[in-house]
């Protein structure tokens, strides 16, 4: 892109450099997911693979306001969450290859990405199980007088689990710095929200714990970013937990085994009109901040980086079978 644009102020006063950074991250995630799907078909990646296409704006927008000291508890649909948090594409790809250079040594796979440096506590594959863990992380930070916040991501499906209720109550009761981030993509596998909740307006539930909340257009990265900034400020200032509902949509199947009998092609197409990447590009173009060449550049950059990640994963090594029973217990004692 041309130098000039980077310092220009664009959409909603967000500077252009930042906008491009957001766009790049979203494009990167999209391409990463498509690549993952390809590699799944090529049998390089196995197990369950849950892709993030359509929801990129949520992770990318959300991570902007967090500092390295903040903690993240993610779900099994977490490639985008992990990438946006700054875990390297190579480490994630190697993980899905099952190589020991993976961010979880190849022990975790797609559903269990972890990173200590960025306080990324998984990659959790039991729906709802991250909620109490996030409450505990926030409790630890608070008891230690840290100013960190813990951001817990979960889907609309998790709202039905008892742990949702217990965790919101406990976080509110103890006034803990937790950001509850609900990625409401309207479906839990094949179960539409209306078949799992007697009241589909999730903010109603949250009110009943006296937890502050708002709902955000999860297809608009700037709206997400702005909402999260406010929520983080609220939580960091000690006012207690905050709940954000991101209204979003999953463009692909739930996992690689899903005939999608539960929704129509038309519905998917309708949502695709709100594609967070396309619409953002459109806005940036409208404002004359980028042009097709810029986009092509970004795409090529993403492509190249992802290819590097694949090369890294391919070149990775298998953990020796003799090490099978390592990491069941720690190898050192605590002090």
């Amino acid at each position: 892109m041309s130098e000039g644009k980077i310092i220009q102020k664009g959409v909603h006063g967000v500077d252009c450099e930042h906008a491009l950074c957001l766009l790049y991250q979203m494009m990167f995630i999209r391409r990463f997911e498509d690549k993952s799907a390809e590699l799944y078909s090529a049998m390089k990646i196995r197990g369950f693979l849950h892709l993030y296409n359509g929801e990129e704006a949520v992770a990318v927008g959300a991570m902007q306001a967090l500092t390295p000291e903040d903690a993240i508890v993610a779900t099994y649909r977490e490639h985008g969450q992990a990438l946006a948090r700054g875990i390297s594409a190579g480490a994630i790809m190697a993980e899905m290859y099952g190589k020991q250079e993976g961010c979880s040594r190849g022990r975790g796979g797609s559903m269990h990405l972890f990173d200590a440096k960025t306080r990324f506590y998984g990659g959790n594959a039991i729906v709802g199980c991250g909620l109490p863990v996030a409450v505990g992380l926030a409790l630890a930070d608070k008891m230690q007088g840290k100013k960190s916040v813990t951001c817990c991501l979960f889907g609309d499906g998790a709202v039905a689990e008892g742990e949702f209720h217990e965790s919101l109550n406990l976080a509110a009761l103890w006034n803990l710095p937790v950001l509850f981030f609900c990625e409401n993509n309207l479906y839990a596998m094949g179960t539409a929200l209306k078949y799992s909740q007697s009241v589909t307006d999730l903010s109603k539930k949250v009110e009943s714990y006296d937890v502050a909340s708002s709902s955000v257009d999860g297809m608009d990265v700037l709206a997400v970013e702005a909402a999260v900034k406010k929520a983080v400020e609220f939580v960091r200032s000690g006012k207690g937990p905050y709940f954000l509902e991101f209204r979003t949509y999953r463009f692909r199947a739930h996992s690689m085994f899903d005939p999608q009998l539960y929704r129509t092609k038309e519905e998917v197409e309708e949502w695709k009109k709100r594609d967070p990447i396309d619409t953002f590009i459109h806005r940036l173009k409208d404002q004359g901040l980028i042009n097709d060449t810029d986009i092509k550049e970004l795409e090529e950059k993403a492509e190249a980086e992802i290819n590097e990640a694949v090369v890294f994963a391919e070149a990775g090594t298998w953990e020796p079978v003799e090490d099978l029973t390592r990491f069941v217990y720690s190898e050192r004692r605590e002090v």
Partner: protein
Amino acid sequence: MNGEPQEVLKTTYREAVREAIRDAMRRDERVFLMGEDVGRYGGCFAVSKGLLEEFGPERIRDTPLSESTFVGAGIGAALGGMRPIVEIMTVNFSLLAADQILNTAATYLHMSGGLFNVPLVIRMATGGGKQLAAQHSHSLEGWFAHIPGIKVLTPATLEDARGMLWTALEDPDPVLIFENSTLYNMEGELPVDAGAVDINHARVCRQGNDITIITYGASLFKVLDAADILEKNGICAEVIDLRTLRPLDDATYLSSVAKTHRALIVDEGWRSGSISAEISARIMEGAFYELDCPVERICSAEVPMPYAKHLEQAALPQTETIVTTVKRMVGTNG
């Protein structure tokens, strides 16, 4: 049975389970199916595909993600005169309902002094081998078999996939059925009139004199493969499919051990405190003086399941290990 050839159908384990559900729903209007994604999605392993269309949403009930409550609701519905089949997607999620299973389903009859029985069937997929990693690969059927008050079935064959459900539904007490998810695609033949099967007895799947290999679930096929290889090596293994893990049919394996004088248990559960430990202990208690060498166990490694394929396969019991172990055991003289 007369000598005429029985009419058979090609089918899969998945279809056999589906047919069992369909059959039950048709026969008895008290039967209904409830669980996550059993309806509109068609079942996470496609077992219940088509049933919503056939029986409607009153009898094929998609539930919210609330394992404890829909299992508890199954208990209540059973108490209330229905015959619910509750599907927990996989055993991994059954832990969220562990309280209802152990503290409610298993205790109701007893704590009410015999007044209230719970004719509930819970089906769940179980097992590793699909690179689903540490939270999605448990084999906890043996662990659940610890609980008095419930029965635990582990259909390995098409016959059992087809037939155990009906017997379970006729049982007055809670029955847990564990379907190993690696078996759903298994193909084979079933008589057209296949129906209910006995659930009280283990099955000798292969006769032999040199050693008894006791197993259940997906491991059965690894054991049968091993037995084929062993046969070529002049070792004739008797293979027993336990079929039901609680209550255990002691007579079948004890009398086999009395014949072969050697026993190996193959079990996909973690070793410590596994159902294979129980069987070893019972052989100790019931056939000690018959043994020519110590009973051995091949179980899963005691590790939360790793994702990487080579590690996962190393964690699970394998045909090769069974072969080597048996060779060593049969080489041993007591």
